[in-house]
């Protein structure tokens, strides 16, 4: 508690005139003397004033009674107590800085340039600059005009300042650490969970309260946390609904919390996608693989683009993501509608195609129940046969679709054409791919896998045959963008979805 917070420091016990001075005794025992000159306006004579006093002020009355000068305890203290005077000077500087800082924050938040604001408020750009730099000689009338030019009132401004003071304990670095502990990686958070226009680096850890509030809004939307949970002392926990529903392949060495957090994020995105494609018509799923294959046209090549078209046409949403990390894809049944999340860092169309078909099998075979899910916590391995029956079945389905159920026949043709010599295989793959109307990238991947079973490493050649242009991620993004209707979601949700789909 400061001296000036004590009422005895403020309360006047006795005050009297003594020549050209006033003597004041405060209730705390302080006796002070101040010259009338320091109090009276310049145009008034110092003589013959009468003085009366109350607990918190003295009143000087001119002989004619026409002038009354009221002097509060604070003014007497500023003139006689160096410490209190310093306190007021510091508060003045700090308040001017705060006003300048807040005004700038609000201007930037409203995305208005300083010159533009000056023009709107009919003040000079120097006035804006002076206020923002913390000058003290600005009238409220000017401040009011400037705020009005941003459609704000003094009350809005004061409330904003009050809110900021109450939230001074909010600290961005504290939030980052808390999020990290809950499984949300900083890089991911900065890239995907806060709007791009917020450049955190600009604030070197001291992120303004209005931006912190905005960031809080995004976290609340995605993770369903309250303000208290986000900023309070308790650790953040990820709602396990998304992962609890999952038909999980639990990773052996990975960070479970990260997968859980990312799964929740992907689940939230899936719900947004469902919401924003609510008007999309649904079709009956094919009863068997032959019926599904026919959707590509008899003998037609199965490309990633064509497959996306078929899948979207069935009413199944496909969301492409390209974040780093341990989550590799998922499928959800949300209220009877299906969403497939593809997450790949590769640019190979064949790999994206395989993953899509693999997930599609889960949709057809394992996600009949409302609110069921499959989350791929490890990279989808097209060649896996032993880890789980469901995974092996999904791989087998993908291969059958890709090779039109003639996998062995096509493989034999390739090998025979190459005269069973590795050095001839590349040419034979190119030829057979054309003859059978199969992607040479798809065929070479399968061949490399089969050769690997014999101890032959042919992956280098297979990689050189991968089709990467156009980038599969961009292809999938185009599909989702063409299918989304952002009128069905709010601006925060739309921003989250936009950020998710930005590379």
């Amino acid at each position, binding site marked *: 508690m400061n001296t000036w917070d004590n009422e005895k420091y403020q309360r006047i016990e006795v005050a009297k005139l003594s020549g050209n001075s006033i003597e004041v005794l405060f209730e705390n025992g302080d006796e002070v003397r101040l010259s009338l000159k320091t109090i009276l306006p310049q145009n008034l004579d110092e003589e013959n004033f009468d003085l009366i006093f109350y607990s918190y002020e003295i009143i000087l009355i001119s002989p004619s009674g026409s002038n009354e000068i009221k002097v509060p305890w*604070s003014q007497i203290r500023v003139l006689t107590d160096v410490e209190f005077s310093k306190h007021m000077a510091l508060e003045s500087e700090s*308040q001017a800085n705060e006003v300048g800082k807040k005004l700038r924050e609000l201007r930037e938040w409203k995305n208005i340039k300083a010159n533009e604001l000056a023009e709107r408020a009919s003040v000079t750009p120097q006035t804006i600059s002076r206020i923002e730099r913390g000058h003290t000689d600005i009238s409220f009338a000017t401040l009011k005009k400037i705020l009005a030019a941003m459609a704000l009132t003094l009350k809005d401004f*004061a409330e904003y300042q009050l809110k900021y003071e109450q939230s001074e304990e909010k600290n961005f670095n504290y939030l980052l650490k808390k999020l990290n502990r809950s499984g949300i990686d900083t890089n991911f958070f900065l890239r995907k969970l806060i709007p791009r226009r917020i450049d955190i680096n600009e604030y070197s850890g001291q992120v303004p309260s209005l931006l912190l509030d905005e960031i809080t809004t995004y976290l609340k939307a995605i993770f369903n946390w309250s303000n208290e949970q986000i900023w309070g002392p308790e650790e953040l926990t990820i709602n396990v609904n998304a992962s609890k529903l999952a038909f999980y392949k639990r990773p052996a060495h990975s960070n479970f919390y990260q997968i859980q957090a990312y799964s929740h994020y992907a689940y939230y995105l899936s719900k947004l996608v469902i919401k924003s494609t609510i008007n999309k018509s649904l079709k009956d799923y094919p009863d068997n693989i032959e019926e599904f294959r026919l959707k590509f046209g008899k003998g037609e090549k199965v490309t990633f683009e064509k497959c996306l078209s078929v899948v979207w046409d069935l009413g199944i949403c496909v969301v492409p993501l390209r974040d780093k990390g341990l989550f590799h894809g998922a499928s959800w049944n949300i209220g009877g509608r299906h969403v497939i999340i593809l997450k790949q860092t590769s640019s190979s169309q064949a790999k994206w195609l395989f993953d899509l078909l693999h997930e599609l099998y889960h949709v057809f075979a394992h996600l009949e129940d409302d609110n069921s899910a499959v989350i791929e916590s490890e990279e989808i391995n097209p060649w896996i046969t032993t880890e789980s029956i469901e995974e092996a079945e999904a791989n087998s389905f993908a291969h059958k679709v890709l090779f039109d159920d003639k996998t062995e026949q096509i493989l034999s043709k390739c090998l025979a054409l190459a005269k069973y010599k590795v050095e001839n295989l590349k040419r034979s793959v190119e030829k057979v791919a054309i003859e059978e109307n199969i992607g040479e990238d798809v065929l070479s991947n399968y061949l490399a896998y089969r050769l690997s079973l014999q101890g032959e490493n042919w992956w280098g050649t297979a990689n050189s045959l991968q089709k990467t242009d156009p980038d599969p991620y961009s292809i999938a993004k185009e599909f989702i963008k063409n299918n989304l209707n952002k009128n069905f979601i709010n601006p925060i949700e739309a921003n989250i979805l936009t950020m998710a789909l930005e590379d």
Partner: protein
Amino acid sequence: MQILVFNQFSVYIYAGQVPPPHCHLRFYDGNDILLSIPNFKVLGGENTLDEDIINILLDNLDYICNKWDELN
């Protein structure tokens, strides 16, 4: 001078004051609080402001600011 009167307190602003802009809240039980304007930070005084008082002040902020401009 007294510029506003409410049930529990009155608001005073004086002429010729040093910055920061400020006002006095004088409670009828005898306390005086020195407050900055417009953010109502306590610059001196024992009392703690409750939300109701802040809201009253916010509702009258325009008038309080005008008075400060007029007297200072």
